[in-house]
């Protein structure tokens, strides 16, 4: 738990990231406007609406790519750490797109804009006539709920499980965005390349998630095959480097991170209490297990965050037979101290 909340938890790295994000978006918007000057004339508000809409879609693909790519390379960690700011920025661009569309297409008429949107395309016949604006509105509502709760205050008060489930709705939002584009802009397009680009983007997002899922599944199967007689075989002592960990899967949603630190071995839950980050991919930094996602820290021998923080995660008993490490499948209560297990020369710990 945080000691206190701040509206935006900026630090130098996040500020540098945000500066680059703003510059990147500005470059994109300028490029969009410059390119438009060489094309058929488009009403300025429609042009701005298109620029924000396309930009939001690009950012959404980027946001959704970070998680799966981080399963393949730790180099994605800086983007993972700053994903929240990217997500909120993406929502703001989608909001600008929606507001411009609402004002321009649904404003100034005999119906109020919301009524106009929700009665869009009624009656319609067949999928081709599917009204795309209510679909976009539904996607925006999901993105709004996510952006509004993109803060540790909500993570804490909704509980990580509810918060995570809620934020998984981003995939529904992505599907709605694809439908919004397919039944809207693509039906007006004369160049088939737009449909191809949209299909590639959708296939990319689905593909990397499937690839990451298959990778995790294979790792899980490998770990389960090592299970023996109640306690689970972790591996040989030499497999774990100082300050690093090895993950052991104990069940569908239970992973243990076995760390080597200061000559001993300690086992804690492999799931960070913050956002469920993979602690086994973390390191010992400043004597603490440090989550690779957001840097949350725990003491390896107790599963407790160092004072003044109060997060606690379960610990596990370890034993070493010869050079082989085994972990108990039964978790201790969160924050329970367990003395580090030390490998002895030629014998059990």
């Amino acid at each position, binding site marked *: *738990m945080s*000691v*206190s909340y*701040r509206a935006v*938890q900026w*630090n*130098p*790295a*996040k500020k*540098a990231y945000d500066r*680059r994000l703003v510059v*990147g978006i500005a*470059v994109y918007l300028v*490029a*969009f406007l410059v*390119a438009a000057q*060489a*094309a*058929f004339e*488009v*009403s300025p508000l*429609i042009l701005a609406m298109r620029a924000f809409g396309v930009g939001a879609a690009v950012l959404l693909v980027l946001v959704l790519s970070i998680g799966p790519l981080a399963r393949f390379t*730790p*180099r994605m*960690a*800086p*983007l993972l750490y700053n994903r929240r700011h990217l997500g909120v920025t993406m929502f703001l661009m989608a909001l600008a797109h929606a507001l411009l569309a609402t004002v*321009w*297409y649904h404003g100034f*008429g*005999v119906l109020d804009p919301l009524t106009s949107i929700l009665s*869009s*395309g*009624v009656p*319609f*016949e067949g999928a081709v*006539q599917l009204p795309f*604006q209510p679909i976009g509105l539904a996607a925006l509502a999901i993105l709004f709920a996510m952006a509004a709760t993109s803060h540790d205050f909500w993570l804490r008060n909704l509980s990580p499980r509810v918060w995570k489930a809620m934020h998984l709705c981003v995939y529904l939002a992505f599907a709605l965005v694809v439908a919004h584009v397919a*039944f*809207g*802009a693509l*039906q*007006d*397009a*004369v*160049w088939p*390349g*737009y449909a191809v*680009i949209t299909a590639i983007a959708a296939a990319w997002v689905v593909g990397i998630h499937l690839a990451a899922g298959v990778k995790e599944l294979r790792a899980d199967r490998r770990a389960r095959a090592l299970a023996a007689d109640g306690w689970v075989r972790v591996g040989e002592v030499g497999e774990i480097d100082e300050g690093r960990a090895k993950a052991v899967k104990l069940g569908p949603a239970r992973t243990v991170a076995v760390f080597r630190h200061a000559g001993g071995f300690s086992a804690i839950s492999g799931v960070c209490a913050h956002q469920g980050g993979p602690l086994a991919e973390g390191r010992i*930094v*400043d004597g*603490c297990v440090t*989550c*690779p996602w*957001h*840097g949350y820290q725990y003491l390896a021998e107790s599963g407790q*965050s*160092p*004072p003044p923080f109060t*997060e606690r995660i379960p610990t596990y008993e370890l034993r070493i037979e010869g050079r082989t490490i085994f972990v108990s499948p039964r978790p201790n209560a969160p924050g329970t101290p367990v003395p580090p297990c030390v490998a002895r020369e030629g014998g059990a710990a």
Partner: protein
Amino acid sequence: MSGERPPQESNGARDFPAGASDFPAGASDFPAGASDFYVGYLPTPAHDRRFTRILGVAVALAAVAIAVLCNAFARPTGSGVWDTGSEVTLEGELVAKPFPMLRVARGDGTVERVLLVEMGKHGADARVAPFARADGTRVAVQARGYLIARDGQRMLELSEDAPIAAGGVMPPATLPERIGTVELEGEIVDSKCWLGVMKPGDGKAHRDCATLCIRGGIPPSIVCRAPDRSTRRALVVGQDGAPLSVEVLAPWIARPVRVRGQADVVDGLAVIRVTALGEPE
């Protein structure tokens, strides 16, 4: 460890280590164990800085490429112009039905019909009603507003404050040219957006806007596209010559449609009295 931890408001959101330089920091600022491991609140390892820099440039280039593609292959939007910069006054004979319009005498002795509409998505029926004569007597008026024009066809968006005044040049009377029964394939649009208020003022993205315009009294038209991409526009009205209700038109707006009806051309303006709307063959 905890006793040496720098000031930190949140686990995972602490400030840089005391004494560390600002981002990006040198290797000497890394705490034990973090020299090659990214932690957001610690100095970024060199290889992560390199990677994110390259990735950032790649993403920016991709975004620019998409921005260019989005415009390079966009469909044509027509030659319509909405001149909101200069208010003009036209004078001629006021025609109230089926839609408000002004018969304006041209210099060559011919007459053109200029549709009159309000600002926003509103027709001008209420505005012209006090000037129209129920007994059919011809009335000359002066109308102030902003021109919308495309392919030689004009519309006047009336100014807000008393845009119509009685009096003005009365053009010569003309008779409609009866074309007879026609079948046209095209797209139902609202005339105001099509003529130049919106670019593009057609297509599915514009469908709700067109529906709202027509619901508000903007004259609907059918636009037919020739193989050479040129377009022809005709007003569509009911079989009795009165405006079609939006409920009848709504299912056919901004989609391929086949219109059957009796066509007339009055002062160069084509009008179709619709007898059937349906899918193109």
